């Protein structure tokens, strides 16, 4: 499979995402500079974490105008797979490729730590390797992960099974205490209605190698690679 990792000025998980798909999962991978106005043929695009444009103004707000985003939209409407992680998720929200917005964490502090996610949907290209109810341990590292969306859209997200991950405790229970940032209904990751775009705040690329002490993130990449094979 061929992955494209979009590099915005200020992206800083671009190398990590590249490393994972290229060296851990042995797939093709290329960096795509944000000023490009043409997109080569990729099977999956990753919008990596970081601080595009310093997160100045709002996270993801300025990144949405990068020339490459036009192509990303076209890629999306053609059904290509797009994975937005952390800041990449924020860019997808600002671009309206996914619904909602990110606000400052409830604690008003940056939070970097491992926590647990409950897998809510296994019927997507990003999660097909798992089963609903699976618990995954993954790190978060963000300042703005407090997901907000209006009530109507929230209901649609629920009804259309677009909520893929929720923050949960070590028993798998989705509780207020397990919510690290104040996100509505403990939402940690969602997809679009067509299910080819996913955004998530936790970092699967940080937990896909045994030397890093946690491999739960592999599920995401393995799912995508499986789905990619089917797509072909």
């Amino acid at each position: 499979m061929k992955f494209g990792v979009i590099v915005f000025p200020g992206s800083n998980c671009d190398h990590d995402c590249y490393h994972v798909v290229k060296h851990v999962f042995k797939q093709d991978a290329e960096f795509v500079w944000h000023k490009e106005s043409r997109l080569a043929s990729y099977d999956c695009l990753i919008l990596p974490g970081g601080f595009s444009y310093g997160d100045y103004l709002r996270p993801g707000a300025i990144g949405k105008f990068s020339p490459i985003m036009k192509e990303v939209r076209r890629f999306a409407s053609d059904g290509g797979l797009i994975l937005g992680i952390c800041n990449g998720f924020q860019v997808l929200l600002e671009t309206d490729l996914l619904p909602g917005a990110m606000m400052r964490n409830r604690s008003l502090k940056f939070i970097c730590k491992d926590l647990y996610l409950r897998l809510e949907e296994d019927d997507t290209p990003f999660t097909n390797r798992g089963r609903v109810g699976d618990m995954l341990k993954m790190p978060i590292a963000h300042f703005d992960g407090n997901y907000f969306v209006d009530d109507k859209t929230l209901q649609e997200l629920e009804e259309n099974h677009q909520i893929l991950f929720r923050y949960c405790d070590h028993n798998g229970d989705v509780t207020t205490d397990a919510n690290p940032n104040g996100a509505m209904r403990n939402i940690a990751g969602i997809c679009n209605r067509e299910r080819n775009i996913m955004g998530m705040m936790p970092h699967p690329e940080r937990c896909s190698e045994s030397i890093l002490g946690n491999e739960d993130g592999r599920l995401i990449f393995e799912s995508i690679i499986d789905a990619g094979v089917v797509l072909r």
Partner: protein
Amino acid sequence: MLARIYVTLKKGVLDPQGKAVQHSLESLGYDKVKDVRLGKYMEVKLDYSRAGESEPIVREMCEKLLANPVIEDYRFEITEE
């Protein structure tokens, strides 16, 4: 011209920063504080000679970039500098 732009959180959107400031004010002993909302204030200098000219431009800038319509409202005034 100078556009003064105010971006505030929509009614109904929880404002964690405002809450935190309110809390700090209270703990400093300001017991008459009933509510605090935090927003952004921007000053944009524009090379137009009339307010009327710049108004639609500023509106567009707000819609496109300066405010996020999912969570924020905006308003602005345009003055000579």
